[in-house]
């Protein structure tokens, strides 16, 4: 005859024997479960009604890029309104997804675009390739490119997701609420 050893563990698969007690226990647990769900029923739903309400993003959230200009009010040597980007292509070099294209050109006294010697004649970011890592922002020596807060970037055409310099420089439509202090 087979005798189970000491290391045998008996697994209770059915309710413990003793029908009355297990029935009562099941009933009690059922009522407890019902009370729990009823508590949820009385609460207000936690749903965020997305297109109408949006979850605010944190200040360091990495959304769509922005290119920056110097402030319009000239306070640092007549640079007001000039682009900060000098077309150095460090962002393009830092980009792991290889989605930034910069073609630089010389500034001339007649056509002064940026504060440096050169400016970005072409500055394109292919947002369908971008992984929003923020390396471009870190690589930039002039803080000309930063990560914005917009994340609603879907479009009907891939070519529409290649953002040009004008689009990145333009004041973005504030579509994403920013999380306040302590929120």
């Amino acid at each position, binding site marked *: 005859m087979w005798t189970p050893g000491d290391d045998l563990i008996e697994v209770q698969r*059915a309710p413990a024997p003793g029908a009355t007690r297990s029935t009562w226990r099941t009933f009690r647990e*059922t009522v407890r479960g*019902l009370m729990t*769900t009823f508590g*949820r029923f009385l609460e207000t*739903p*936690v*749903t965020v*009604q997305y297109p109408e309400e949006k979850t605010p993003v944190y200040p360091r959230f990495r959304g769509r890029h922005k290119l920056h200009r110097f402030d319009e009010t000239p306070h640092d040597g007549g640079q007001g309104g000039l682009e900060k980007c000098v077309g150095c292509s460090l962002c393009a070099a830092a980009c792991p997804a290889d989605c930034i294209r910069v073609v630089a050109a010389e500034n001339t006294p007649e056509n002064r675009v940026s504060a440096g010697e050169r400016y970005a004649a072409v500055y394109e970011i292919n947002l369908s390739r971008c992984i929003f890592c923020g390396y471009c922002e870190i690589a930039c020596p002039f803080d000309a490119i930063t990560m914005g807060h917009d994340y609603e970037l879907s479009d009907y055409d891939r070519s529409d997701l290649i953002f040009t310099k004008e689009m990145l420089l333009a004041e973005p439509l504030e579509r994403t609420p920013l999380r306040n202090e302590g929120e």
Partner: protein
Amino acid sequence: MLATVGYYEEWWIQILKAIVIFAVGLQLVPVVLLAERKLLGRFQSRYGPNRVGPYGALQPLADILKLLTKEQFRPTSSIGFLFMFAPLVSIVTAVAAFAIIPFGNVQHIFGTPVGLYGIDVSIGPLYLFAFGAVAFYGIMLGGWSSGSKYSFLGAMRGAAQLISYEVSQGLALVGVIFTAQTLSLTGIVQAQAGMWYIVPQFFGFLIFLTASFAEINRAPFDLTEADAELVGGYNTEFGGGRFASYYFAEYLNVLVVSGIVTTVFLGGWLLPFGIHPPGWVDPFVVLFKMSLFTFFFIWVRATLPRLRYDQLMSFGWKILLPLATLNALVTAVLVVVTH
């Protein structure tokens, strides 16, 4: 032999009543459909459908329209005639069972006495169980004729489950019938004038309610559908209008069972504390009580996980059936002693 009708009515009244009950009763189904989705949402701390129409009120209409405009699709391995016939069985039995729920006493409408129920059969609960048993063919034939293993498994589970729980459900009602000394549902309501049967027949009420969950395949006894393991159970292969029929029948069954529990245990159209409102209030009282039970069905669905098949069987035969038998036995003894 035909069952005697509790109150004789002209044939045109019968037809009018059939139309009214059909029109009003079936309008309740989309309401229950929406209520279920909204309430399930609230039980899970979300809103539920709220995009179609104000507060999502048109969601069931959108669902039904979508289903009805879909292609009527049939697997090649299915049995054509039965595949079309089975959803009809489900829906017809559900509607037929709805006919016996009394919404009020005999009223005099424009001088004509009209009973506010489809038909007052003298064998009320038996009629209910008869149609319940036929409704099982809707599931069984649907699952079998689909020619799919999931459907077949669902149908087989359904067969076992319905047979097991119908016994307990019937025995739970036996106690009420002993006490009321009548099988007519209007008679049972009138017998509750002093005290609703939920008090003296409390255990019967609990047993009946539990068995009803299994009878109408609602969670936690929805093993015939068991979407997690059987895809959709007996209705896996059904789409479009045929699926809509099953869906419709399912929710109509919720209403029917709510109505039966209201009638048998909660005093139907009667109000407590001797309040006797005018006759036109009766249907609203019944509808209110029905909505309480419909809420309970949805509440339980949001709470309890599905039982395992062996748990379902052992619960039905080892716990529910002995309890129901004991309840009937004790009631019988008490009725004999007190009379």
